[in-house]
């Protein structure tokens, strides 16, 4: 309870603004002018902004003078069609008049009074309230004992709830029902409360709350339940708050709240949590009540009043409220902010208007206010895992969110291809399916490099199929034969026939063996063919020289000659260097045909380099593919990826995938030993992390690389993830190092305590996954030891040391040194457990300890203070035990009373007439039913058991089943308590009859009937039975 802010020097009544956007604004109607003048009876209506958030001083927004003093003030959000954007503000004055203002106009300092209603006799109008379900409707109660209803949307509509509305004393409070718009209650100083029904224009009921002459100080309806009414007694001798349940009795309250020691002055039921009530009394206490436990759980602190100001406050209410008997702050008005949760406003005799927050309320025995309980939660985990929980059940939902579905799909498809299909086939498929030439080319190349006869294949791919060429050449030759070889011969041999002289010269030279001269002669005369023929006899030197000369001379006429030259002259490297990049295909074909195995890769690389220089990266990459040069081919693919990314402005996952696919396939061709270059490794790391984000952990592990810190972190994370074994396999079976420096956190010196309630009744867990995760969690603690621990713990390594001083370890434990930190740790050779702490012989060997009985449960009951004691349990839902009626009204059975049978200990603490109806299904503790109701129990439990055993039950079905169990448990308990009317029992029996004959359709219609007529009082079990029936139909009708 912390004071947020206060306004001093105001003896006043106050009201919160109900306008959402002005939730910090209050209206204060003063009970005096604050002056000391004798003549001045007037007062003021002030609007203040309390500015709760910033903690600044309250700020006066506007003020209007009144001729009379305020007795009450009330604010409605009704705008009357937008005319009054800040709603309507009314004040009940001491002279019996009611004013209505426009608060907006007050702030703007304009004419603000809208209406004045004069229906009451002179005397303070202390009771004033707007109808929460009809915001323009106002109820007022005057000193004349009259209750008036004013419809502010209609000019002069002021009427009494019925003809004889008169109560015989001053009306102290009016309150509209929160659920039914035509019900209003009024409290009077004579100790009575009347509940009026405006529709039938009569009194709905009358309560005698106090003995005659003792006033009912205040009253309030339950904010969320229609028939619960609280009345507060002003009687100093019996200052209690009574809770009435008008359904059950109008003569006896359901329960009373005792705590005040003198008459109560005001009270307010919390609109945001119907379990909280605030009341203030003449005992100078302002108490916060928990209506569950019916106990005070907090108190608004009071200021010490200094006597100086005390004497100044001459309000007559002071006497009504008990006078100046004490020097403590006395509050006479309390209320909750209608908008701000847990914020209260109080007015006190020491002329203070204060706002407090109960949010800071601390009490371990109390339940948290409703608004503190989170209704749902969601959280992301590694690999796109999402976990969420809600307030509808106790289940956690775990799922995987795939951010990039198309990317994930691509990856999944590719991985399955790798699993099932031949890589070359995949390449072929890609090559034939794509419409982009460059891609087709790439994939065709990719396919061919897998072929053992790849060079031959590549030639074909380049358009140089040897067989085809041979047949073409043949065809061509034949063609020419038939069409006249002569012409061709002439064309081809421009040099004329050899002259006689030349012939002679050559002949002579040959005769003397001077082939040099003969060749020279032939060349000079343009007879290259003769020269070549002669040179072939003239020895190696001449032959080479002549060839060269021939090529030089003829190259212009025959463009195939450089090629022949290169092939003959071992000059392929030179040829590649000099080749025309445009004709790269031919050059490549030559390499493919003539290159020796040892120079093949070099030549392809050289051609690739040449093309790269020329700017033809695409074809260069093909050459690099031929040369199996992963580094260089990767470079081109990276470039492609970069271009796509640049065009997109962000990482294009499809392109990244495409890149990874190419490199991966290529790696298969090159062989797994080849290492990725740094850039490729980085991209693979990125690819891997993107896969991990989609929840594709195993694939991510496959592509992860340990080259960077990020890569190491990711590998560690994958290795210890929920898919640990598969990830480990995908990483080649070598566990990654723990990438962080381990920090060993020791026990805090203060308050060491064990918290585990050891749940060693481990359910059978056949899956190795969980064993593995256990193992991996162990290794998480033992740093880089990970991955080797299995071997190590099986065969102690030389690093095992046994310090003699430390005493003996329990069986199975050995001491080891952590290689990275040098610290000693302990491993259990049999279980694989490791720990930093030295296991103690007993502790380490301890058998699963018997579940410790919870100390609370064994606490002996203290009969004198049952509530207090009981409130230690659970969240203080003790009313379920001590006030079963309240429990069933206020607690919704599902959540408020979760302990059921397990908390039987509580029941013994207090007197129980009617045990709580809990939804806990305990097969060993099924209540006994009378003979005629026995079939209900037998049938329903039989159905549940049968469903439980049914193998076709899915996860969702199981949840439905647990809902059913809860419902059936409640039904059986309520039947046992006799809490279910005979006619409903009959219906249930009828339904049971149908169920036993598997006639679920008829059973359903009986149930539907019940649901539509009895839902309100029986939803706690109808819901579950409905679920059961639904489940039974689903399981057995299919």
């Amino acid at each position, binding site marked *: 309870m912390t004071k947020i802010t206060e306004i001093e020097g105001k003896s006043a009544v106050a009201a919160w603004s109900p306008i959402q956007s002005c939730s910090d604004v209050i209206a204060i109607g003063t009970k005096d002018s604050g002056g000391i003048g004798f003549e001045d009876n007037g007062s003021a209506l002030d609007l203040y902004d309390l500015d*709760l958030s910033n903690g600044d001083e309250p700020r006066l927004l506007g003020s209007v003078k009144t001729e009379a003093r305020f007795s009450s003030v009330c604010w409605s959000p009704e705008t009357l069609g937008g005319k009054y954007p800040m709603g309507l503000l009314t004040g009940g004055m001491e002279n019996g008049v009611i004013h209505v203002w426009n608060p907006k106009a007050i702030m703007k300092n304009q004419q603000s009074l809208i209406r004045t209603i004069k229906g009451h006799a002179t005397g303070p109008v202390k009771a004033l309230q707007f109808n929460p379900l009809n915001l323009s409707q106002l109820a007022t109660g005057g000193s004349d004992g009259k209750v008036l209803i004013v419809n502010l949307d209609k000019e002069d509509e002021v009427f009494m709830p019925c003809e004889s509305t008169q109560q015989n004393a001053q009306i102290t409070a009016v309150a509209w029902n929160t659920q039914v718009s035509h019900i209003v209650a009024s409290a009077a100083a004579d100790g009575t409360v009347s509940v009026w029904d405006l529709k039938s224009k009569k009194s709905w009921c009358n309560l005698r709350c106090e003995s005659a002459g003792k006033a009912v100080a205040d009253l309030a309806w339950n904010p969320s339940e229609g028939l619960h009414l609280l009345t507060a007694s002003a009687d100093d001798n019996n200052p209690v708050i009574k809770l009435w349940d008008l359904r059950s009795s109008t003569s006896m309250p359901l329960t009373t709240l005792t705590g005040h020691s003198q008459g109560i002055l005001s009270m307010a039921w919390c609109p945001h949590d119907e379990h909280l009530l605030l009341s203030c009394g003449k005992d100078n206490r302002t108490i916060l009540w928990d209506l569950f436990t019916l106990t005070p759980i907090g108190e608004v602190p009071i200021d010490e009043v200094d006597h100086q100001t005390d004497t100044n406050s001459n309000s007559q209410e002071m006497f009504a409220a008990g006078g100046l008997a004490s020097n403590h702050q006395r509050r006479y008005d309390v209320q909750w902010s209608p908008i701000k949760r847990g914020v209260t406003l109080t007015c006190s005799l020491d002329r203070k208007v204060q706002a407090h927050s109960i949010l800071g309320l601390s009490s371990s025995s109390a339940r948290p206010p409703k608004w503190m309980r989170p209704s749902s939660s*969601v959280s992301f985990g590694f690999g796109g895992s999402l976990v969420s929980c809600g307030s509808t059940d106790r289940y956690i939902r775990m799922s995987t969110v795939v951010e990039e579905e198309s990317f994930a799909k691509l990856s999944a498809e590719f991985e399955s291809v790798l699993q099932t299909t031949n890589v070359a086939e995949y390449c072929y498929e890609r090559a034939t399916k794509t419409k982009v030439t460059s891609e087709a080319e790439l994939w065709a190349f990719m396919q061919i490099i897998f072929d053992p006869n790849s060079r031959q294949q590549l030639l074909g791919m380049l358009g140089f199929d040897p067989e085809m060429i041979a047949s073409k050449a043949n065809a061509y030759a034949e063609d020419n034969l038939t069409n006249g070889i002569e012409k061709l011969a002439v064309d081809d041999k421009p040099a004329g026939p050899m002259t006689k002289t030349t012939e002679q010269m050559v002949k002579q030279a040959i005769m003397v063996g001077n082939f040099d001269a003969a060749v020279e002669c032939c060349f000079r005369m343009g007879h290259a063919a003769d020269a070549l023929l002669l040179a072939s006899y003239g020895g190696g030197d001449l032959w080479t020289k002549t060839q060269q000369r021939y090529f030089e001379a003829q190259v212009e006429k025959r463009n195939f000659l450089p090629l022949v030259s290169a092939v003959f002259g071992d000059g392929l490297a030179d040829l590649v260097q000099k080749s025309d990049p445009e004709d790269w295909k031919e050059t490549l074909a030559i390499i493919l045909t003539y290159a020796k195995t040892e120079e093949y890769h070099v030549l392809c690389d050289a051609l690739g380099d040449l093309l790269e220089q020329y700017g033809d990266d695409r074809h260069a990459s093909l050459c690099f593919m031929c040369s199996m040069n992963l580094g260089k081919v990767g470079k081109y693919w990276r470039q492609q990826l970069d271009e796509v990314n640049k065009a997109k402005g962000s990482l294009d996952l499809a392109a990244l995938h495409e890149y990874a696919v190419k490199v991966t396939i290529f790696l298969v061709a090159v062989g797994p030993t080849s290492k990725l270059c740094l850039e490729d490794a980085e991209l693979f790391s990125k690819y891997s992390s993107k896969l991990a*984000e989609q929840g594709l952990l195993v694939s991510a592990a496959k592509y992860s690389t340990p080259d960077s810190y990020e890569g190491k972190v990711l590998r560690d994370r994958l290795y210890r993830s929920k898919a640990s074994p598969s990830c480990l396999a995908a990483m080649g079976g070598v566990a990654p190092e723990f990438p962080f*420096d381990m920090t060993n956190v020791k*026990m805090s010196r203060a*308050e060491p305590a064990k918290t585990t*309630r050891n749940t060693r009744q481990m359910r059978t867990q056949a899956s190795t996954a969980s064993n593995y995760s*256990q193992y991996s969690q162990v290794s998480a603690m033992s740093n880089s030891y990970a991955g080797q621990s299995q071997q190590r713990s099986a065969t102690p390594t030389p690093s095992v040391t046994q310090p003699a001083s430390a005493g003996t370890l329990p069986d199975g434990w050995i001491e080891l040194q952590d290689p990275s930190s040098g610290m000693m740790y302990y491993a259990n050779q049999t279980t694989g457990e490791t720990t930093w702490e030295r296991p103690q012989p007993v502790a380490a060997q301890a058998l699963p300890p018997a579940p410790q009985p919870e100390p609370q449960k064994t606490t002996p009951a203290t009969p004198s203070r049952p509530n207090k004691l009981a409130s230690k349990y659970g969240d203080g839902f003790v009313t379920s035990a001590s006030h079963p009626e309240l429990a069933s009204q206020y607690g919704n059975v599902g959540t408020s009373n979760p302990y059921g049978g397990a908390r039987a200990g509580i029941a013994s603490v207090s007197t129980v007439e009617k045990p709580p109806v809990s939804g806990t299904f305990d097969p060993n503790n099924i209540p006994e039913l009378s003979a005629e109701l026995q079939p209900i129990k037998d049938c329903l439990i039989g159905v549940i058991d049968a469903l439980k055993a049914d193998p076709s039950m899915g996860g969702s079905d199981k949840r439905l089943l647990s809902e059913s169990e809860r419902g059936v448990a409640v039904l059986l308990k309520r039947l046992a308590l006799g809490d279910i009317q005979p006619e409903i029992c009959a219906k249930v029996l009828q339904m049971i009859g149908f169920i036993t004959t598997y006639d679920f359709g008829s059973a359903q219609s009986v149930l539907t009937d019940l649901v539509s007529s009895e839902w309100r009082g029986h939803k706690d079990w109808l819901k579950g039975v409905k679920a059961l029936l639904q489940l039974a139909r689903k399981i057995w009708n299919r």
Partner: protein
Amino acid sequence: MTQEAEPGRIYVDTQHEDLVHDAQLDYYGCRLATCSSDRTIKIYNVSETSYELSATLQGHEGPVWQVSWSHPKFGVLLASCSFDGSVFIHREIRPRDWSLVHVARRIHDSSVNSVAFAPHEYGLKVAAASSDGRVSIISCQNDDDWSLEYIEDNALGVNSVSWAPSGAYHDESNSEGTEISRLVTGGCDNRMRFWKLQDSGQWCEDSQSQVSKDLCHSDWVRDVAWAPCLVPNINMVASCSEDRTVLIWTQNGRNEEWKALLLHTFDSPVWRVSWSVTGHMLAVSSGDNDVSVWKAGVDGTWSQMSTVEDTPETQHDG
């Protein structure tokens, strides 16, 4: 208990005896911690298709609102906060065997609503936000002592606290590379506040960067979440509120103004927001059980990816 479920989705029956308030996966995603109004915390081992209860932790004297896992370099540590005003730090010393390494009992006068381990680069620290209006920072010192500091936030109470990730701010001039720890809080004053640790070792409100008032919450801020850092000095924070909205706050550069974008107005109050590990997606839970996942497009607009379906039993209800 092992429970088979439809692929990709597991329903964990927590066996808590009252409402479950929080569920968090550890760094590796193979353990799940849940906490409940039944005052206990449960730890589950999770595999791809099944789960198994590993331990139940007790000790809190009120509902346990939130749990937070530490980075694995500190071992297996879990922080929890409770309505009882306490923050506990639990450690699994050997499988299934948990101890309390630190008990900060009643360090707050009122409910502790949120707890979060700091990024491991900042050391072993926990921030906790309380209804008493303060945020506490619990730090493990070198000598295994724990220190406690308070930040005075706002009188109405603090609902949530979230740490800035390491690397969120890059200062060229700071060659040391030591980073200033920062926090964001959300509270009952409908506001978010940014805090930073000064060189003096004192926390102060980050006054250098303004928070735009063009768009703000009109009711309690229930949760705040600082996004994982994608680009240094470009920071994002998601906030959600009782006013049914989620706002995405972006700061484009150090000391720039935080500007808000309305993600969506939901049907009921929004309780939690959570960023995916890489910061591309935001999960939002509103009402009793409505979970939706949102993703930012290249152009900065957000779109809803999917709604995590509710359980069949509530679908058939009424």
